[in-house]
């Protein structure tokens, strides 16, 4: 590493860049707010994506990982496609989600639980399982809304749009071997 490339200082900014393909564009942020302006969930966010980037730059790790911004993201990619500096903002949001989950910094959101339930089904069956998601995640996290879902669930069911049993792929062991390897590699 040549001396002209900034020495690593162990900042949060570097950490986020490291964990995001294309993340090095982060340093180009000019704080224009086109991400925050574009976000369909902008009103729900405690900090706009722009603010979050400023906080990353200010090394405010704790506040960033505890923010609700990531959990309000709907992955519409407007921020990414409109960013005048080509910063992969949605991908950075994913990075922050992963960090926040790994360190259990999130609060007041069920998104991590949803993600876990969902991915557990994938790990187990190789396919997603909507009924299982409904029963597992919703019963656990939001029994009241589950009640409201009742009629819709019934409609879905009568129209043949919901299965009661998960589909399992034939070569589930193969998929699991791949997933386990990935988990092993990313643990490093």
């Amino acid at each position, binding site marked *: 590493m040549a001396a002209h490339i900034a020495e690593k200082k162990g900042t949060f900014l570097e950490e986020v860049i490291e*964990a995001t*393909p*294309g993340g090095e564009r982060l340093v180009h942020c000019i704080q224009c707010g086109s991400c925050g302006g574009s976000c*369909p*969930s902008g009103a*729900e966010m405690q900090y706009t994506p722009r603010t979050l980037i400023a906080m990353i730059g200010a090394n405010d790790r704790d506040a960033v990982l505890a923010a609700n911004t990531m*959990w*309000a993201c*709907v*992955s*519409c*990619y*407007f921020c*990414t*496609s*409109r960013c005048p500096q080509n910063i992969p903002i*949605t991908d950075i949001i*994913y*990075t922050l*989600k*992963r960090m926040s989950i790994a360190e259990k910094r999130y609060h007041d*959101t*069920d*998104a*991590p639980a*949803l*993600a*876990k339930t*969902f*991915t557990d*089904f*994938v790990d187990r069956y*190789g*396919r*997603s399982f*909507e009924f299982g998601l409904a029963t597992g995640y919703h019963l656990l996290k939001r029994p009241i809304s589950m009640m*409201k879902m009742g*009629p*819709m669930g019934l*409609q*879905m069911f009568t*129209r*043949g*749009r*919901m*299965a009661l049993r998960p*589909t399992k*792929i*034939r*070569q589930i062991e*193969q*998929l699991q*071997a*791949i*997933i386990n*390897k*990935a*988990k092993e*590699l*990313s643990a490093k």
Partner: protein
Amino acid sequence: MKYAYYPGCSLERNAAAYDHSVREVADLLGIRLQEIDDWNCCGATEYFSRNELAACAVIARNLALVEPQTDQLVAPCAACYLNLIKTDKLMVDHPEFGKEVNQCLAAGGLKYEPGRVTVRHMLDVIVDDIGETAVRDKVVRPLAGLRVAPYYGCQVVRPISNNDNPEYPMKMDHLLKWLGAEVVDYPVKAHCCGGHMTQISEPQAFELIRRLLQNAQDYVADMIVCMCPMCQLNLDGYQSRVNGFFGTEFKLPIMYFTQMLGIAFGIDPQKLGFGKEIVTAMPVLEAKLGGQPV
């Protein structure tokens, strides 16, 4: 023309209408779809929230399973489409990461050469590969008089270009015009349906759904035509709850674009999965297309 086909989990059940209509329309247009054997879930947006490498490895398994005879892979679901194309692009752009993904695949005895497979959305295949003339030739029941609002959602047009404008896409507009429909040019056609937010924060999700329904209604659309099972579920399945939540009275059928192609082509609506939608399309179709349209 031969394409590998990745239906994705939604199309198995919840969006069976999409799957059926895709297959029917493909058949008629001479698009040969070969379903990937033993494909697995793409992980939706959820897997990326937990583990990027695992997410990509899970997706790459499907890419690796694409038979060597074709390098074209069709995915009708927007989330599946983006996940597949994004994983391939990550592996191409970041060779080190690509190697890691392949290390994972190797654990399952598989290998994927980044860039080998071109991931396509069904809409692009029909508009770009089949083209206007071939589509118009097949139309036996023009959708004249029907005001349709094409709804693109997010993940097919952004962030990776499908040769359409990511802000104001036009491909479905063109396609529906070829079918004779009156296309509603409304500004939110590529805005968000709420995605998985219905599962996390209903008020937030319902507001996003309302914006779309409201704008389509303001522009006097008879129905919304979409290209993603998640969009369909949110706009259709949750429509009555949105009405309850905001006191609105939306009654907009939400159909897949392949279903509309199918009826314009004169395919039996039963085969196209008509009737599986919760806000029924029958009344408006009967009223606008006259007689016994379906």
